[in-house]
């Protein structure tokens, strides 16, 4: 038995407080062993136990008619998409490892989230990445971008899951601590969903996949504190092997289809420790394992090290007794380990043996459900009021709006991301219906159903910094808007909540407000939160990142609702309208703006890029207005009247219009557009505020980022019908002009050839990155 001093020291290295340590002693009724301290340490880490965030996460709406598994019950959310099929999806962060070792950090982030999906019996069909880096003028940002993209590319491409979407933004707030959030989507017949619970006393517990080494030792604890300077954290980063993962996918899906498997869980954060205690606790049983039987790749590993290792591509599988040999043969066919390391027990204990010695014996529920919850103090950040102040009267208007437009189009956050997504295999599995960057959301065809699944990730850290409540709402609203732009009905949400240290009351205030914003928006849109993760301690020597909740959302393009009108009964059923893409299609089409433009420049990309300011209040999100816009878009999509749709986000209306002209490289198409209220009939598109008819500043009109707006186009003969439908949905609509020509003309302010717009947008990122094209 090690002495008390050593135990205290190990406890401290796991960030366990004295109070928590006393709680552990009380739970066990004795002093813990060294292995037990390690087990408690990783399981009580913020990464695994959500100690600071759990009380807030409980406030998310989680129920809905399509939700098949409640949030938190399994490793990912499950949504019914009809026809006997379900979608399994989840988003997870890998920020800390990526900051230290970007290639492996990002690669293992991809590997981990894929395992969460296929352990539920679902075939992974798509990946999306939400990335944040510092400005590309800084060599470290370029190094991190290069490494993260390589990591995602190396792993995702080899494992055969297409990377179909996501977003990337650059801001000084992420220069020390980049964000790497990966979302994976899987497809499973609803009756074949696998559980991450142990069951059946006496059933064998199998260890499956790669052998265990010292890599990633204590990664969960590492991810639960601020990053240190230098390379000291490097050994805590895991190494990924996509080849093993690919074999693991195939072997696992084959094994689950046989019915020989009771439960299964990935060994992700906190490896063997987390998977044994969580599956036991979920099943209300105990698990006894012998670490001496665990396949190893390093010599002389102690039980403490085996239990805490985060070696990749490993899983815990509970088989039906008597079927274990069949399961083992199946994994052997794919060249994978499958070793019986223990059994399911009746006593509710997680018992770890090392041969004949007992190294740990802990009630499984004490590690999971009974993990401590921290009531962190909450305080509004001191400098926020000052940051929110923005005196527009003192902000000079630009002289050349065309030049501003070109600058914004070339800014890496807005510019074309082909240089990144062309490094990802986005076509494998042959379901990618829309190429990345051609529509507001990724779209995959669902061959079994004859419909399409759409997915997006969104989040604006600058908005959340300036107003976390509105920023939280805005992230959900933009995700939903992106989905309706392709014609998909939003169904459900997964989220990655990236924040600074929870021990900072200002960070907890941001967190609380963001969660409230996300909750309110998800309630309004009827898109329940199905799961996700929280990443705290995103801080570097220069402070915390901007609070950045990333919302992953899925939606469905459904067959058109048939009219019940008997007169039309003889008509053949209309086909499902396909996904709507963002680019203008034909000369002469009408350019339409849906939604209201206000004088809102706070937190805009324009303010950051042109005036070098991060100030003001972000655009206010009117949830009722957003809902109306979503319903209108779905009605328009099902009628098939829209030829293109693109939401206004970073860079505002002018950038959105320009992108509609240039997003399809083979078909650049200009437009002649007027934003003057006098130039068109109908309700005004520009208002200074509710009720006021005052004209707003031209820069706010062109580059402001008011929420709830979509630029669309349709054939001229459909305009009246679209107007009628918009009025019925109470959505402001304006006909801005028409598609055509080789220039984008915006009143007297902007007249730029589309070639020039395209050049600025297409070369922006490669130039800042220093890539050869």
């Amino acid at each position, binding site marked *: 038995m090690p002495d008390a001093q050593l135990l205290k020291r190990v406890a401290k290295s796991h960030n366990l407080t004295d109070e928590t340590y006393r709680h552990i002693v009380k739970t066990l009724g004795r002093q813990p062993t060294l292995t037990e301290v390690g087990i408690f340490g990783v399981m009580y880490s913020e990464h695994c136990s959500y100690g600071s965030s759990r009380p807030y996460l409980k406030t998310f709406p989680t129920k809905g008619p399509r939700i098949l598994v409640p949030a938190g019950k399994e490793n990912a959310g499950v949504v019914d998409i009809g026809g006997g099929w379900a979608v399994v999806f989840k988003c997870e962060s890998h920020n800390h490892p990526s900051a230290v070792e970007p290639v492996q950090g990002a690669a293992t982030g991809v590997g981990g989230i894929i395992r969460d999906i296929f352990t539920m019996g679902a075939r992974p069909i798509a990946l999306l990445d939400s990335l944040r880096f510092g400005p590309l003028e800084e060599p470290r940002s370029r190094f991190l971008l290069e490494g993260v993209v390589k990591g995602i590319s190396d792993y995702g491409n080899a494992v055969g899951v297409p990377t179909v979407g996501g977003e990337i933004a650059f801001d000084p707030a992420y220069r020390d601590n980049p964000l790497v959030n990966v979302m994976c989507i899987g497809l499973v017949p609803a009756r074949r969903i696998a559980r991450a619970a142990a069951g059946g006393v006496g059933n064998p517990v199998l260890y499956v996949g790669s052998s265990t080494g010292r890599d990633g030792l204590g990664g969960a604890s590492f991810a639960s504190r601020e990053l240190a300077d230098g390379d000291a954290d490097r050994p805590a980063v895991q190494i990924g092997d*996509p*080849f093993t993962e690919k074999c693991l996918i195939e072997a696992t899906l084959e094994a689950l289809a046989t019915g020989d498997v009771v439960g299964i869980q990935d060994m992700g954060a906190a490896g063997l420790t987390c998977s044994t205690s969580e599956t036991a606790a979920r099943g209300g049983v105990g698990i006894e394992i012998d670490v001496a039987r665990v396949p190893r790749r390093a010599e002389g590993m102690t039980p403490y090290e085996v239990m805490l290792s985060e070696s990749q591509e490993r899983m815990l599988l509970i088989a039906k007794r008597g079927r274990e040999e069949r399961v083992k043969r199946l994994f052997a066919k794919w060249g994978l380990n499958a070793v019986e390391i223990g059994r399911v027990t009746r006593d509710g204990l997680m018992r770890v043996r090392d041969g004949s010695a007992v190294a740990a014996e802990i009630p499984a529920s004490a590690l999971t459900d009974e993990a401590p919850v921290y009531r962190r103090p909450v305080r509004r950040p001191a400098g926020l009021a000052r940051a929110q102040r923005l005196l527009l009267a003192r902000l000079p208007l630009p002289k050349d709006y065309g030049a501003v437009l070109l600058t914004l189009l070339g800014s890496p956050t807005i510019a074309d991301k082909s240089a990144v997504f062309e*490094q990802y*295999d986005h*076509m*494998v599995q*042959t379901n990618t*219906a829309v*190429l990345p960057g051609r529509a507001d959301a990724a779209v995959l065809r669902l061959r079994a159903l004859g419909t399409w699944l759409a997915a997006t990730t969104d989040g604006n850290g600058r908005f959340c910094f300036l107003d976390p409540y509105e920023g939280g709402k805005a992230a959900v609203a933009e995700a939903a808007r992106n989905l309706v732009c392709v014609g998909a009905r939003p169904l459900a949400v997964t989220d990655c909540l990236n924040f600074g240290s929870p021990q900072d009351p200002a960070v907890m205030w941001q967190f609380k407000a963001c969660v409230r914003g996300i909750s309110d928006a998800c309630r309004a849109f009827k898109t329940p939160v199905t799961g996700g993760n929280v990443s705290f301690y995103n801080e570097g020597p220069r402070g915390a990142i901007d609070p950045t909740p990333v919302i992953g959302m899925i939606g469905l393009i459904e067959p058109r609702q048939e009219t019940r009108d008997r007169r039309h009964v003889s008509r053949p059923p209309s086909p499902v309208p396909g996904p709507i893409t963002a680019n203008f299609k034909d000369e002469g089409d009408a350019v339409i703006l849906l939604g209201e433009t206000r004088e809102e420049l706070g937190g805009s990309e324009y303010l950051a890029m042109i005036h070098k300011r991060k100030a003001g209040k972000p655009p206010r999100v009117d949830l009722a207005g957003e809902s109306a816009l979503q319903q209108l878009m779905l009605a328009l999509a099902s009628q098939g009247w829209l030829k293109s749709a693109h939401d206004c986000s970073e860079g505002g209306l002018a950038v959105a219009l320009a992108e509609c002209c240039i997003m399809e490289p083979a078909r650049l198409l200009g437009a002649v557009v007027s934003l003057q209220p006098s130039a068109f009939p109908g309700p005004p598109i520009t208002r200074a505020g509710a009720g006021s008819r005052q004209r707003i500043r031209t820069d706010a009109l062109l580059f402001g980022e008011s929420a709830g707006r979509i630029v669309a186009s349709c054939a001229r003969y459909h305009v009246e019908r679209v107007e009628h439908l918009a009025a019925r949905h109470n959505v402001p609509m304006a006909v801005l002009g028409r598609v055509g020509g080789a220039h984008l003309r915006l009143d007297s302010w902007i007249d730029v050839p589309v070639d020039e717009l395209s050049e600025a947008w297409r070369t922006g990122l490669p130039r800042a990155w220093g890539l050869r094209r």
Partner: protein
Amino acid sequence: MKFGVVVFPGSNCDQDCLDVLNDVIGQRAVPLWHQETSLKGADAVVLPGGFSYGDYLRTGAIARFSPIMRSVARFAREGGLVLGICNGFQILLEAGLLPGAMLRNTGLRFICRFVTLRVERTDTPFTNRFEAGQTIRLPIAHNEGRYAADTKTLKAVQGQVVFRYCKEDGRVADAANPNGSVDAIAGLANERGNVLGMMPHPERAAEAALGSSDGRLIFESMLEAYAHA
């Protein structure tokens, strides 16, 4: 016609090929496991894309030693149709069924995008449905697709080049060569013409819903060749 699609551990386009052959082309296609030796009576064999055996060591270098490859090599020598796509092309080179070698792309990055190809030969069992000089659009997705050969080999294989990377107007140019392949070679047949290796993925462009159906003609050419054999 019956197709056999070889499944190596790490293959990831095997299912896509099976789907296209079964559901789009409407023929029978069955998987052939790498550790088996039987081709299950297949009339043509497809080596699909992916990362066989993780592509550790060198792309395709380990796959060529698998039991199924001995049968594929015999089948090819007897005149059977063998189509190697992407990693399958790399394996054919490693196995010596096609001349030359594959290097990393000149940009040292993985590239996934549609490219334009010129069909150089229409008298092969894989291209009889195309017109001479026709340009087609197919996607590529690879990190090691830069075809290389020594001067002597290059001279010898000139007549065996089936696809070249080209501009939309059909002209070969450096700007249209995505990976630095010598002579812009994207696809190459053996002397007899019954073995074709190509870096672009025809199975990813066999339906209009996915942006191009040009790839379909490659499989349909194989049907045509089989019907007239």
